[in-house]
């Protein structure tokens, strides 16, 4: 079924090489010398994007543990876009905040390589190693502003709960290994299909522990405690990166493990996912309404979006299949755009991320206010944006799969969430107040990246068929 070759590794190698180059450049950088390290990252990411486009439909597999099937390549595409946009936003933020550029880019690229590896992994051990490559780099990125106590604290909370959850994940792998005698996902899948009728408590235990591990990473209630703190304490640019990249990669691996390897046991894990999805949507939305910090509010919003993704995973029928990947893509560009605006509006000693800081933004920065409005409306799921199409297909899939309860909860929470997104919009347009401490102007690169993200939101919202089609064909390679 797979062509064994070295090819599947190429996208990862491109990103790793760029990361190593960034590290070496930082090592040999003289004091105060400026280097175009971000450009290195861009080159590596573009190379990764091109190579994954060339690998499309070829089903390459390397060493039996990494498969570049269309599913993995589609997620790689999302991750490459996330990486490129983040680098474009970063260029001015790094200098303004005094973040060491070489370390920042190296860590970001290493964590991206882990994410890509996670999306392509066909072996539970590789999923674990990739998860750790991704996470360890992101822990450090969260606390990269060492001079800020809250950043360090966020980093530690994230680290502690992340390490804790990865122990559970690993325990799940151990039980799977004990039952199946292998960690290869395809072999596990065949074995599970052969003995699906037998109620093996070890399999249930393994699935439960793996689920806990994944749920921590995609911040599903009740494993979401770290999310608001980590998202608020981290620099806005890092929050944008981790709220999209980490979630996309972890969700891709989640879908691959549960939809391909543990698919025969769907009757056992579906009820658990049902409860988790409902809880996640409700808690994320309801607690989000009470927030006064924009980053924290978007953190709860991203928790709620994790719930919608779980609904898509649960109702992965003919309609739902494509919806998962489409939603991931739509969520990634939308959330990146929102955090991008927060990032460019911040100042070195002042995050400018409280809701009241956005009062009257329309009068001082009409362009940024418009961009923020579009991304918030897309997060809320209003037409004609990407978020609307994503939610539409997710809920349609849930209804056609018979999960009426989840669909109703989803629609209700979406309506409530529109309220808190609109609160920000109203703040920006109605209140008239000159904001002090905002940066004088935004560089062309940052604005270009924002414009690209907004264009992508509208493209996915108005002409979704092409991407939907692509997503449907990608996910059919695993399920």
């Amino acid at each position, binding site marked *: 079924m797979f062509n064994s070759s070295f090819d599947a590794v190429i996208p990862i190698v491109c990103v790793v090489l760029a990361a190593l180059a960034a590290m070496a450049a930082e090592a040999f950088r003289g004091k105060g010398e400026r280097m175009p390290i971000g450009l290195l990252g861009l080159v590596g990411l573009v190379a990764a994007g091109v190579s994954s486009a060339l690998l499309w439909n070829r089903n390459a597999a390397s060493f039996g543990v990494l498969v570049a099937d269309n599913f993995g390549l589609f997620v790689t595409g999302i991750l490459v876009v996330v990486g490129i946009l983040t680098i474009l936003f970063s260029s001015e933020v790094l200098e303004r905040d005094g973040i060491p550029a070489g370390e920042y880019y190296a860590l970001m690229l290493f964590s991206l390589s882990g994410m890509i590896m996670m999306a392509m992994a066909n072996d539970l051990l590789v999923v674990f190693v990739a998860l750790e490559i991704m996470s360890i780099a992101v822990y450090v990125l969260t*606390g990269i502003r060492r001079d800020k106590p809250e950043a360090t604290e966020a980093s530690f909370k994230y680290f502690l709960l992340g390490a804790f959850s990865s122990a559970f994940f690993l*325990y799940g792998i151990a039980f799977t290994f004990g039952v199946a005698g292998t960690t290869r996902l395809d072999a596990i899948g065949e074995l599970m299909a052969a003995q699906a009728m037998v109620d093996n408590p070890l399999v249930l235990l393994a699935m439960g522990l793996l689920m806990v591990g994944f749920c921590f990473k995609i911040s599903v209630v009740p494993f979401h405690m770290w999310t608001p703190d980590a998202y608020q304490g981290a620099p806005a640019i890092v929050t944008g990166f981790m709220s999209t990249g980490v979630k996309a990669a972890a969700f891709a691996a989640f879908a691959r493990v549960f939809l391909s390897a543990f698919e025969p046991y769907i009757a056992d894990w579906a009820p658990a996912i049902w409860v988790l999805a409902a809880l996640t949507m409700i808690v994320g939305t309801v*607690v989000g309404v009470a927030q006064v910090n924009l980053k924290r509010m978007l953190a709860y919003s991203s928790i709620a979006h994790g719930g919608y993704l779980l609904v898509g995973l649960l109702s992965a029928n003919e309609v739902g299949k494509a919806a998962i990947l489409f939603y991931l893509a739509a969520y990634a560009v939308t959330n990146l755009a929102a955090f991008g605006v927060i990032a460019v509006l911040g100042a070195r000693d002042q995050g400018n991320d409280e809701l009241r800081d956005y009062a009257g933004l329309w009068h001082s920065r009409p362009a940024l206010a418009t961009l923020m409005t579009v991304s918030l409306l897309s997060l809320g799921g209003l037409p004609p944006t990407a978020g609307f199409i994503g939610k539409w297909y997710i809920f349609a899939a849930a209804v056609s799969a018979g999960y009426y309860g989840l669909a109703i909860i989803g629609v209700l929470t979406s309506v409530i969430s529109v309220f808190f997104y609109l609160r920000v919009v109203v703040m920006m347009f109605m209140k008239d107040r000159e904001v002090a401490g905002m940066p004088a102007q935004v560089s062309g690169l940052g604005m270009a990246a924002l414009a690209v993200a907004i264009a992508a939101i509208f493209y996915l919202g108005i002409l979704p068929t092409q991407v939907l089609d692509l997503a449907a064909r990608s996910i059919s390679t695993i399920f």
Partner: protein
Amino acid sequence: MIPLSHYLIVSAVLFSIGTTGVFLRRNLITVLLSIEIMLNAVNLSFIAFGRTHGTVDGQIIVFFVMTVAAAEAAVGLAIVISLFRHRESLNPDAFTALRW
């Protein structure tokens, strides 16, 4: 020969000790140690399972887990040091800059 279940029970007990430590201890270094105990408990399971399956896969997995654990511990300690510089305390209850 010692049956597989003995190893699994020891491993489960160790894992529970680690989990309890993470929740109950009030010193960040001890909490980090508890997480290491959890990872090593899992290593024991891997080796026991690998032995029953008659392959060396279990032991090879343990090598990877050890490496990952070392990397994680190094980053964790580094974060603890920079946290200590801000707070002069290792008690997690002292960290309250972020709360909803």
